[in-house]
Protein backbone atom coordinates (compact mmCIF):
# COMPACT_ATOMS: atom_id res chain seq x y z
CA UNK A 1 0.00 0.00 0.00
CA UNK A 2 1.17 3.54 -0.80
CA UNK A 3 2.23 5.53 2.28
CA UNK A 4 1.86 9.31 2.47
CA UNK A 5 3.74 11.21 5.13
CA UNK A 6 3.29 14.77 6.35
CA UNK A 7 3.99 17.49 5.49
CA UNK A 8 2.21 16.43 2.31
CA UNK A 9 4.38 16.41 -0.81
CA UNK A 10 2.68 17.84 -3.90
CA UNK A 11 4.08 15.26 -6.32
CA UNK A 12 3.09 12.25 -4.20
CA UNK A 13 -0.53 13.42 -4.23
CA UNK A 14 -0.59 14.14 -7.95
CA UNK A 15 0.48 10.55 -8.67
CA UNK A 16 -2.58 9.11 -6.91
CA UNK A 17 -5.48 7.95 -9.07
CA UNK A 18 -8.97 6.70 -8.33
CA UNK A 19 -9.03 3.13 -6.93
CA UNK A 20 -5.52 3.54 -5.42
CA UNK A 21 -5.39 2.73 -1.73
CA UNK A 22 -2.96 4.40 0.62
CA UNK A 23 -2.35 5.15 4.27
CA UNK A 24 -1.02 8.18 6.12
CA UNK A 25 1.64 8.48 8.77
CA UNK A 26 2.08 11.90 10.35
CA UNK A 27 -0.44 14.54 11.38
CA UNK A 28 -4.01 14.98 10.16
CA UNK A 29 -6.49 17.63 11.28
CA UNK A 30 -10.20 17.11 11.75
CA UNK A 31 -12.59 19.69 10.31
CA UNK A 32 -16.33 19.65 9.91
CA UNK A 33 -18.68 22.44 8.81
CA UNK A 34 -18.03 24.88 11.65
CA UNK A 35 -14.23 24.42 11.52
CA UNK A 36 -14.20 25.17 7.79
CA UNK A 37 -16.20 28.35 8.38
CA UNK A 38 -13.93 29.34 11.23
CA UNK A 39 -10.70 28.94 9.25
CA UNK A 40 -12.15 30.68 6.19
CA UNK A 41 -13.26 33.61 8.38
CA UNK A 42 -9.69 33.94 9.67
CA UNK A 43 -8.38 33.96 6.13
CA UNK A 44 -10.91 36.60 5.01
CA UNK A 45 -9.90 38.79 7.96
CA UNK A 46 -6.26 38.52 6.98
CA UNK A 47 -5.27 36.45 10.05
CA UNK A 48 -3.09 33.37 10.03
CA UNK A 49 -4.54 30.01 11.06
CA UNK A 50 -3.00 28.47 14.20
CA UNK A 51 -1.29 25.60 12.29
CA UNK A 52 -0.07 24.93 8.74
CA UNK A 53 -3.40 24.00 7.16
CA UNK A 54 -1.89 23.51 3.68
CA UNK A 55 0.67 20.88 4.75
CA UNK A 56 -1.72 18.45 6.44
CA UNK A 57 -4.55 16.19 5.28
CA UNK A 58 -8.00 17.42 6.23
CA UNK A 59 -10.11 14.69 7.82
CA UNK A 60 -13.89 15.23 7.80
CA UNK A 61 -14.49 13.89 11.27
CA UNK A 62 -16.04 14.75 14.61
CA UNK A 63 -14.48 12.27 17.05
CA UNK A 64 -15.51 10.87 20.41
CA UNK A 65 -12.83 12.07 22.83
CA UNK A 66 -11.91 11.26 26.42
CA UNK A 67 -9.90 13.49 28.73
CA UNK A 68 -7.66 11.47 31.07
CA UNK A 69 -6.31 13.87 33.70
CA UNK A 70 -5.74 16.64 31.19
CA UNK A 71 -4.55 14.41 28.33
CA UNK A 72 -6.93 13.99 25.40
CA UNK A 73 -7.44 10.55 23.92
CA UNK A 74 -9.36 9.54 20.78
CA UNK A 75 -12.07 6.98 21.53
CA UNK A 76 -13.72 6.63 18.12
CA UNK A 77 -13.08 8.69 15.00
CA UNK A 78 -14.60 7.68 11.66
CA UNK A 79 -15.40 10.06 8.82
CA UNK A 80 -18.47 12.28 8.62
CA UNK A 81 -20.53 12.91 5.44
CA UNK A 82 -18.27 14.97 3.17
CA UNK A 83 -20.93 16.41 0.86
CA UNK A 84 -21.74 19.01 3.52
CA UNK A 85 -18.26 20.44 3.00
CA UNK A 86 -18.87 21.00 -0.74
CA UNK A 87 -19.91 24.51 0.35
CA UNK A 88 -16.38 25.29 1.52
CA UNK A 89 -13.71 23.07 -0.02
CA UNK A 90 -12.94 25.06 -3.19
CA UNK A 91 -12.46 28.28 -1.18
CA UNK A 92 -10.52 26.26 1.39
CA UNK A 93 -8.07 25.02 -1.25
CA UNK A 94 -7.72 28.54 -2.69
CA UNK A 95 -7.04 29.96 0.78
CA UNK A 96 -4.72 27.34 2.27
CA UNK A 97 -3.59 25.00 -0.51
CA UNK A 98 -4.75 21.86 1.34
CA UNK A 99 -4.53 18.94 -1.09
CA UNK A 100 -5.70 15.80 0.72
CA UNK A 101 -9.25 15.39 1.99
CA UNK A 102 -10.57 12.30 3.76
CA UNK A 103 -14.21 11.57 4.44
CA UNK A 104 -17.10 9.44 3.32
CA UNK A 105 -19.87 9.58 0.77
CA UNK A 106 -17.96 11.59 -1.83
CA UNK A 107 -18.05 15.22 -2.95
CA UNK A 108 -19.51 17.10 -5.91
CA UNK A 109 -18.44 18.87 -9.10
CA UNK A 110 -17.33 22.06 -7.37
CA UNK A 111 -14.83 20.20 -5.19
CA UNK A 112 -13.77 17.98 -8.08
CA UNK A 113 -12.88 21.04 -10.17
CA UNK A 114 -10.89 22.50 -7.26
CA UNK A 115 -9.00 19.20 -6.81
CA UNK A 116 -7.99 19.40 -10.47
CA UNK A 117 -6.91 23.02 -10.11
CA UNK A 118 -4.81 22.37 -7.00
CA UNK A 119 -3.57 18.84 -7.71
CA UNK A 120 -5.52 17.38 -4.80
CA UNK A 121 -7.36 14.16 -3.99
CA UNK A 122 -10.35 13.06 -1.98
CA UNK A 123 -10.17 9.67 -0.26
CA UNK A 124 -12.77 7.61 1.51
CA UNK A 125 -12.43 5.75 4.79
CA UNK A 126 -15.24 3.32 5.61
CA UNK A 127 -18.05 5.37 7.16
CA UNK A 128 -19.08 4.21 10.61
CA UNK A 129 -15.79 2.43 11.29
CA UNK A 130 -14.74 4.88 14.00
CA UNK A 131 -13.35 2.24 16.36
CA UNK A 132 -11.11 0.93 13.56
CA UNK A 133 -9.71 4.39 12.79
CA UNK A 134 -9.04 5.14 16.47
CA UNK A 135 -6.39 2.39 16.48
CA UNK A 136 -4.25 4.42 14.05
CA UNK A 137 -4.11 7.46 16.34
CA UNK A 138 -1.00 7.50 18.50
CA UNK A 139 -1.69 10.76 20.28
CA UNK A 140 -3.56 14.03 20.16
CA UNK A 141 -1.12 16.79 19.22
CA UNK A 142 -3.40 19.76 19.84
CA UNK A 143 -6.93 21.05 19.70
CA UNK A 144 -8.28 24.40 18.51
CA UNK A 145 -11.62 26.14 19.17
CA UNK A 146 -12.76 23.46 21.63
CA UNK A 147 -14.57 25.89 23.95
CA UNK A 148 -16.20 27.72 21.10
CA UNK A 149 -17.21 24.77 18.91
CA UNK A 150 -17.49 21.78 21.24
CA UNK A 151 -15.90 18.32 20.83
CA UNK A 152 -17.33 17.24 17.46
CA UNK A 153 -16.73 20.52 15.64
CA UNK A 154 -13.37 21.49 17.15
CA UNK A 155 -10.17 21.05 15.12
CA UNK A 156 -8.12 18.14 16.48
CA UNK A 157 -4.57 17.56 15.27
CA UNK A 158 -4.05 13.82 15.44
CA UNK A 159 -0.75 12.01 15.17
CA UNK A 160 -1.46 8.86 13.14
CA UNK A 161 0.52 5.80 12.07
CA UNK A 162 -0.61 4.02 8.93
CA UNK A 163 -4.09 5.52 8.99
CA UNK A 164 -5.88 3.52 6.30
CA UNK A 165 -6.75 1.86 4.05
CA UNK A 166 -7.89 5.04 2.35
CA UNK A 167 -9.41 4.64 -1.09
CA UNK A 168 -8.88 7.44 -3.59
CA UNK A 169 -12.36 8.12 -4.97
CA UNK A 170 -11.64 11.54 -6.56
CA UNK A 171 -8.28 12.44 -8.10
CA UNK A 172 -6.50 15.46 -9.56
CA UNK A 173 -7.31 14.28 -13.09
CA UNK A 174 -11.01 14.97 -12.65
CA UNK A 175 -11.98 11.34 -12.17
CA UNK A 176 -14.58 10.49 -9.52
CA UNK A 177 -15.79 7.04 -8.53
CA UNK A 178 -18.86 8.72 -7.02
CA UNK A 179 -19.74 10.45 -10.28
CA UNK A 180 -19.17 7.33 -12.43
CA UNK A 181 -21.18 5.20 -10.04
CA UNK A 182 -24.02 7.74 -9.83
CA UNK A 183 -24.38 7.53 -13.61
CA UNK A 184 -24.51 3.71 -13.48
CA UNK A 185 -27.01 3.76 -10.60
CA UNK A 186 -29.19 6.24 -12.48
CA UNK A 187 -29.31 3.91 -15.52
CA UNK A 188 -30.17 0.97 -13.23
CA UNK A 189 -32.90 3.04 -11.58
CA UNK A 190 -34.48 3.92 -14.94
CA UNK A 191 -34.46 0.24 -15.95
CA UNK A 192 -35.99 -0.87 -12.61
CA UNK A 193 -38.68 1.83 -12.76
CA UNK A 194 -39.83 0.51 -16.14
CA UNK A 195 -40.35 -2.91 -14.57
CA UNK A 196 -42.52 -1.62 -11.69
Amino acid at each position, binding site marked *: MILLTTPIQTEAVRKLKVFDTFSITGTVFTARDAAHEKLLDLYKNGSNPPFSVGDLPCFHCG*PVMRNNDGVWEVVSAGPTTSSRMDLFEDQFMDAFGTRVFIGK*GGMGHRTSAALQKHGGIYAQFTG*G*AGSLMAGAVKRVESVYYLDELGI*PEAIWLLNVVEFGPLLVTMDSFGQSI*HQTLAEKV*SINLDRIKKSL
Partner: protein
Amino acid sequence: MDFERLTQSLIEPIRRSVISLPRTTHDALRRATLEEEEIGRTQLEAMLKAIDIGIEQKIPICQDTGTPTFYVSIGTAFPGFCEIHQLEPALRRAVQLATQVIPLRPNTVHPFNGSNPGDNTGFEIPQVIWQIHGRDTFHLTYLPKGGGCTNMSQLTMMTPGKGIRGVKDIVLTRIATMAGNPCPPTVIGVGLGGSDVMCMELAKKALLRPVGQRHPESFVAELEFELLEKANELGVGPAGIGGKTTVLDIKIEYEYRHPASFPVGIAVQCWANRQITVSVNANGSVEVIS
Protein backbone atom coordinates in the same frame (compact mmCIF):
# COMPACT_ATOMS: atom_id res chain seq x y z
CA MET B 1 -40.37 2.62 41.51
CA ASP B 2 -36.68 3.39 42.06
CA PHE B 3 -35.98 5.91 39.29
CA GLU B 4 -32.47 6.70 40.52
CA ARG B 5 -31.62 3.02 40.20
CA LEU B 6 -33.21 2.94 36.73
CA THR B 7 -30.94 5.82 35.63
CA GLN B 8 -27.89 3.85 36.82
CA SER B 9 -29.19 0.58 35.33
CA LEU B 10 -29.49 2.12 31.87
CA ILE B 11 -25.81 3.04 31.51
CA GLU B 12 -24.64 -0.48 30.60
CA PRO B 13 -27.42 -1.06 28.02
CA ILE B 14 -26.65 2.34 26.47
CA ARG B 15 -22.97 1.37 26.35
CA ARG B 16 -23.84 -1.99 24.81
CA SER B 17 -26.02 -0.28 22.19
CA VAL B 18 -23.11 1.78 20.82
CA ILE B 19 -20.28 -0.79 21.08
CA SER B 20 -22.14 -3.65 19.37
CA LEU B 21 -25.02 -4.23 16.96
CA PRO B 22 -28.20 -6.30 17.19
CA ARG B 23 -27.42 -9.92 16.26
CA THR B 24 -29.71 -9.82 13.19
CA THR B 25 -27.87 -6.79 11.75
CA HIS B 26 -24.43 -8.24 12.53
CA ASP B 27 -25.40 -11.53 10.83
CA ALA B 28 -26.77 -9.69 7.78
CA LEU B 29 -23.45 -7.84 7.36
CA ARG B 30 -21.53 -11.13 7.66
CA ARG B 31 -23.76 -12.76 5.04
CA ALA B 32 -23.29 -9.80 2.71
CA THR B 33 -19.51 -10.37 2.56
CA LEU B 34 -20.21 -13.66 0.76
CA GLU B 35 -22.15 -11.82 -1.97
CA GLU B 36 -19.68 -9.07 -2.73
CA GLU B 37 -16.68 -8.81 -4.99
CA GLU B 38 -13.42 -7.35 -3.72
CA ILE B 39 -14.25 -3.64 -3.54
CA GLY B 40 -17.50 -4.13 -1.62
CA ARG B 41 -16.08 -6.94 0.49
CA THR B 42 -13.18 -4.74 1.67
CA GLN B 43 -15.70 -2.18 2.93
CA LEU B 44 -17.85 -4.80 4.68
CA GLU B 45 -14.78 -6.34 6.28
CA ALA B 46 -13.79 -2.92 7.66
CA MET B 47 -17.30 -2.62 9.13
CA LEU B 48 -17.10 -6.09 10.71
CA LYS B 49 -13.64 -5.31 12.08
CA ALA B 50 -14.97 -2.05 13.56
CA ILE B 51 -17.73 -4.05 15.31
CA ASP B 52 -15.18 -6.55 16.68
CA ILE B 53 -13.00 -3.71 18.01
CA GLY B 54 -16.07 -2.03 19.50
CA ILE B 55 -17.02 -5.18 21.41
CA GLU B 56 -13.46 -6.09 22.47
CA GLN B 57 -12.37 -2.63 23.59
CA LYS B 58 -15.83 -1.44 24.70
CA ILE B 59 -15.62 1.68 22.52
CA PRO B 60 -18.29 3.12 20.22
CA ILE B 61 -18.20 1.47 16.77
CA CYS B 62 -19.01 4.80 15.15
CA GLN B 63 -17.93 8.18 16.48
CA ASP B 64 -21.41 9.51 15.77
CA THR B 65 -23.19 8.05 18.77
CA GLY B 66 -26.36 9.75 17.59
CA THR B 67 -29.14 11.74 19.16
CA PRO B 68 -31.14 9.69 21.63
CA THR B 69 -34.75 8.58 21.36
CA PHE B 70 -36.48 6.32 23.88
CA TYR B 71 -39.52 4.24 22.96
CA VAL B 72 -41.51 3.42 26.07
CA SER B 73 -44.06 0.62 26.12
CA ILE B 74 -45.61 0.42 29.57
CA GLY B 75 -48.68 -1.21 31.05
CA THR B 76 -51.07 0.49 33.49
CA ALA B 77 -50.77 -2.65 35.67
CA PHE B 78 -46.99 -2.16 36.03
CA PRO B 79 -46.30 -1.67 39.78
CA GLY B 80 -44.65 1.77 39.40
CA PHE B 81 -47.13 3.14 36.89
CA CYS B 82 -48.63 5.83 39.15
CA GLU B 83 -45.18 7.49 39.49
CA ILE B 84 -44.34 7.31 35.81
CA HIS B 85 -44.21 11.10 35.44
CA GLN B 86 -40.71 10.72 36.93
CA LEU B 87 -39.53 8.63 33.99
CA GLU B 88 -38.58 11.41 31.57
CA PRO B 89 -36.21 13.18 34.01
CA ALA B 90 -34.67 9.76 34.84
CA LEU B 91 -34.04 9.03 31.14
CA ARG B 92 -32.56 12.49 30.68
CA ARG B 93 -30.14 11.89 33.55
CA ALA B 94 -29.22 8.50 32.10
CA VAL B 95 -28.24 10.14 28.80
CA GLN B 96 -26.23 12.85 30.58
CA LEU B 97 -24.42 10.27 32.69
CA ALA B 98 -23.82 7.90 29.76
CA THR B 99 -22.37 10.78 27.71
CA GLN B 100 -19.79 11.29 30.44
CA VAL B 101 -18.85 7.75 31.40
CA ILE B 102 -18.97 5.75 28.13
CA PRO B 103 -18.20 8.40 26.66
CA LEU B 104 -20.68 9.35 23.93
CA ARG B 105 -20.06 12.23 21.57
CA PRO B 106 -21.98 15.27 22.81
CA ASN B 107 -24.05 15.91 19.71
CA THR B 108 -26.83 18.35 20.50
CA VAL B 109 -26.13 21.93 19.41
CA HIS B 110 -28.20 25.10 19.52
CA PRO B 111 -29.64 25.79 16.04
CA PHE B 112 -29.04 29.54 16.28
CA ASN B 113 -25.60 29.91 17.86
CA GLY B 114 -24.16 26.37 17.64
CA SER B 115 -23.47 26.14 21.39
CA ASN B 116 -23.21 22.60 22.75
CA PRO B 117 -24.54 21.75 26.25
CA GLY B 118 -22.07 18.84 26.24
CA ASP B 119 -24.50 16.21 27.48
CA ASN B 120 -26.66 15.19 24.48
CA THR B 121 -29.80 16.88 25.77
CA GLY B 122 -32.05 19.63 24.45
CA PHE B 123 -35.42 21.01 25.56
CA GLU B 124 -37.07 17.65 24.88
CA ILE B 125 -34.08 15.57 23.91
CA PRO B 126 -33.86 12.70 24.65
CA GLN B 127 -37.19 12.38 22.90
CA VAL B 128 -39.55 9.94 24.64
CA ILE B 129 -42.26 8.23 22.61
CA TRP B 130 -44.99 6.63 24.68
CA GLN B 131 -47.18 3.61 24.15
CA ILE B 132 -49.46 2.72 27.06
CA HIS B 133 -51.21 -0.64 27.30
CA GLY B 134 -53.14 -2.53 29.96
CA ARG B 135 -50.62 -5.23 30.94
CA ASP B 136 -48.02 -5.23 33.74
CA THR B 137 -44.85 -5.01 31.62
CA PHE B 138 -42.49 -2.10 30.97
CA HIS B 139 -40.16 -2.20 27.96
CA LEU B 140 -37.75 0.55 26.92
CA THR B 141 -35.97 0.84 23.58
CA TYR B 142 -32.99 3.16 23.17
CA LEU B 143 -32.36 4.33 19.60
CA PRO B 144 -29.24 6.50 19.16
CA LYS B 145 -29.57 7.65 15.57
CA GLY B 146 -26.68 9.14 13.62
CA GLY B 147 -26.75 12.39 11.68
CA GLY B 148 -25.44 11.15 8.33
CA CYS B 149 -28.26 8.71 7.79
CA THR B 150 -30.91 10.95 9.36
CA ASN B 151 -29.97 13.68 6.86
CA MET B 152 -31.32 11.36 4.16
CA SER B 153 -34.84 11.24 5.69
CA GLN B 154 -37.63 12.37 3.39
CA LEU B 155 -41.34 13.10 3.56
CA THR B 156 -43.27 13.19 0.29
CA MET B 157 -46.92 14.22 0.22
CA MET B 158 -47.61 12.00 -2.78
CA THR B 159 -50.56 12.53 -5.12
CA PRO B 160 -52.81 9.63 -4.08
CA GLY B 161 -53.53 8.64 -7.70
CA LYS B 162 -49.93 7.47 -8.06
CA GLY B 163 -50.75 4.55 -5.77
CA ILE B 164 -48.37 1.82 -4.61
CA ARG B 165 -46.39 2.10 -7.85
CA GLY B 166 -45.71 5.71 -6.90
CA VAL B 167 -44.52 4.55 -3.48
CA LYS B 168 -42.04 2.14 -5.09
CA ASP B 169 -40.77 4.93 -7.34
CA ILE B 170 -40.22 7.31 -4.41
CA VAL B 171 -38.44 4.74 -2.22
CA LEU B 172 -36.13 3.40 -4.94
CA THR B 173 -35.31 6.90 -6.24
CA ARG B 174 -34.38 7.98 -2.73
CA ILE B 175 -32.10 4.98 -2.19
CA ALA B 176 -30.42 5.61 -5.57
CA THR B 177 -29.84 9.34 -5.10
CA MET B 178 -28.63 9.27 -1.51
CA ALA B 179 -25.80 7.03 -2.77
CA GLY B 180 -22.99 6.56 -0.21
CA ASN B 181 -24.05 9.43 2.08
CA PRO B 182 -25.96 7.43 4.73
CA CYS B 183 -23.26 4.70 5.15
CA PRO B 184 -24.81 1.82 3.21
CA PRO B 185 -25.78 -0.97 3.44
CA THR B 186 -28.68 0.78 5.14
CA VAL B 187 -31.93 -0.27 6.77
CA ILE B 188 -34.86 1.69 5.33
CA GLY B 189 -38.00 2.47 7.32
CA VAL B 190 -41.01 3.45 5.22
CA GLY B 191 -44.15 5.04 6.63
CA LEU B 192 -47.26 5.06 4.48
CA GLY B 193 -50.37 7.10 5.21
CA GLY B 194 -51.38 8.77 8.46
CA SER B 195 -50.78 12.49 8.83
CA ASP B 196 -47.49 14.15 7.88
CA VAL B 197 -46.10 13.75 11.41
CA MET B 198 -47.51 10.26 11.96
CA CYS B 199 -46.03 9.11 8.69
CA MET B 200 -42.47 10.03 9.69
CA GLU B 201 -43.00 8.49 13.13
CA LEU B 202 -44.13 5.27 11.47
CA ALA B 203 -41.08 5.30 9.20
CA LYS B 204 -38.74 5.65 12.16
CA LYS B 205 -40.58 3.12 14.27
CA ALA B 206 -40.35 0.63 11.39
CA LEU B 207 -36.57 0.59 11.98
CA LEU B 208 -37.14 -1.10 15.34
CA ARG B 209 -38.31 -4.34 13.70
CA PRO B 210 -35.32 -6.76 13.49
CA VAL B 211 -33.46 -7.04 10.17
CA GLY B 212 -34.88 -10.00 8.23
CA GLN B 213 -38.28 -9.95 9.94
CA ARG B 214 -41.15 -9.27 7.53
CA HIS B 215 -44.37 -7.40 8.27
CA PRO B 216 -47.07 -9.78 9.60
CA GLU B 217 -49.51 -8.88 6.81
CA SER B 218 -48.58 -10.61 3.57
CA PHE B 219 -49.38 -7.73 1.19
CA VAL B 220 -47.02 -5.47 3.17
CA ALA B 221 -44.38 -8.19 3.45
CA GLU B 222 -44.50 -8.70 -0.33
CA LEU B 223 -43.93 -5.00 -0.98
CA GLU B 224 -41.04 -4.96 1.50
CA PHE B 225 -39.46 -7.93 -0.25
CA GLU B 226 -39.93 -6.48 -3.74
CA LEU B 227 -38.38 -3.15 -2.71
CA LEU B 228 -35.48 -4.97 -1.00
CA GLU B 229 -34.71 -7.00 -4.13
CA LYS B 230 -34.95 -4.00 -6.45
CA ALA B 231 -32.95 -1.68 -4.18
CA ASN B 232 -30.12 -4.19 -4.26
CA GLU B 233 -30.13 -4.12 -8.08
CA LEU B 234 -29.26 -0.40 -8.00
CA GLY B 235 -25.54 -1.05 -7.50
CA VAL B 236 -24.76 1.59 -4.84
CA GLY B 237 -23.07 -1.08 -2.70
CA PRO B 238 -21.31 -1.05 0.68
CA ALA B 239 -20.00 2.44 1.54
CA GLY B 240 -21.46 3.67 -1.75
CA ILE B 241 -18.58 2.63 -4.00
CA GLY B 242 -20.37 -0.12 -5.91
CA GLY B 243 -21.68 -3.60 -5.15
CA LYS B 244 -24.70 -5.77 -4.56
CA THR B 245 -25.57 -4.88 -0.98
CA THR B 246 -27.11 -1.42 -0.87
CA VAL B 247 -29.76 -2.12 1.78
CA LEU B 248 -29.86 -4.77 4.49
CA ASP B 249 -33.62 -4.52 4.81
CA ILE B 250 -36.70 -2.41 4.11
CA LYS B 251 -39.50 -2.13 6.68
CA ILE B 252 -42.94 -0.69 6.05
CA GLU B 253 -45.55 0.47 8.57
CA TYR B 254 -48.85 2.01 7.50
CA GLU B 255 -51.88 3.92 8.76
CA TYR B 256 -55.19 5.07 7.27
CA ARG B 257 -54.85 8.37 5.42
CA HIS B 258 -56.90 11.38 4.35
CA PRO B 259 -58.33 10.63 0.86
CA ALA B 260 -56.59 13.69 -0.57
CA SER B 261 -53.19 12.89 1.01
CA PHE B 262 -50.77 10.00 0.67
CA PRO B 263 -47.76 10.73 2.87
CA VAL B 264 -44.72 8.58 2.10
CA GLY B 265 -42.07 8.85 4.82
CA ILE B 266 -38.56 7.46 4.59
CA ALA B 267 -36.30 7.05 7.62
CA VAL B 268 -32.80 5.88 6.83
CA GLN B 269 -30.59 3.93 9.22
CA CYS B 270 -26.87 3.34 8.56
CA TRP B 271 -25.26 -0.13 8.68
CA ALA B 272 -24.44 0.65 12.33
CA ASN B 273 -28.07 -0.04 13.17
CA ARG B 274 -27.68 0.60 16.88
CA GLN B 275 -30.61 -0.02 19.21
CA ILE B 276 -31.32 -1.91 22.39
CA THR B 277 -34.48 -2.97 24.21
CA VAL B 278 -34.68 -3.70 27.93
CA SER B 279 -37.37 -4.94 30.24
CA VAL B 280 -37.65 -2.74 33.34
CA ASN B 281 -38.42 -4.12 36.80
CA ALA B 282 -40.24 -2.16 39.52
CA ASN B 283 -37.03 -1.91 41.60
CA GLY B 284 -35.32 -0.03 38.75
CA SER B 285 -33.18 -2.92 37.49
CA VAL B 286 -33.31 -3.85 33.81
CA GLU B 287 -32.76 -6.91 31.62
CA VAL B 288 -31.66 -6.69 28.01
CA ILE B 289 -34.20 -8.37 25.72
CA SER B 290 -32.74 -7.58 22.32
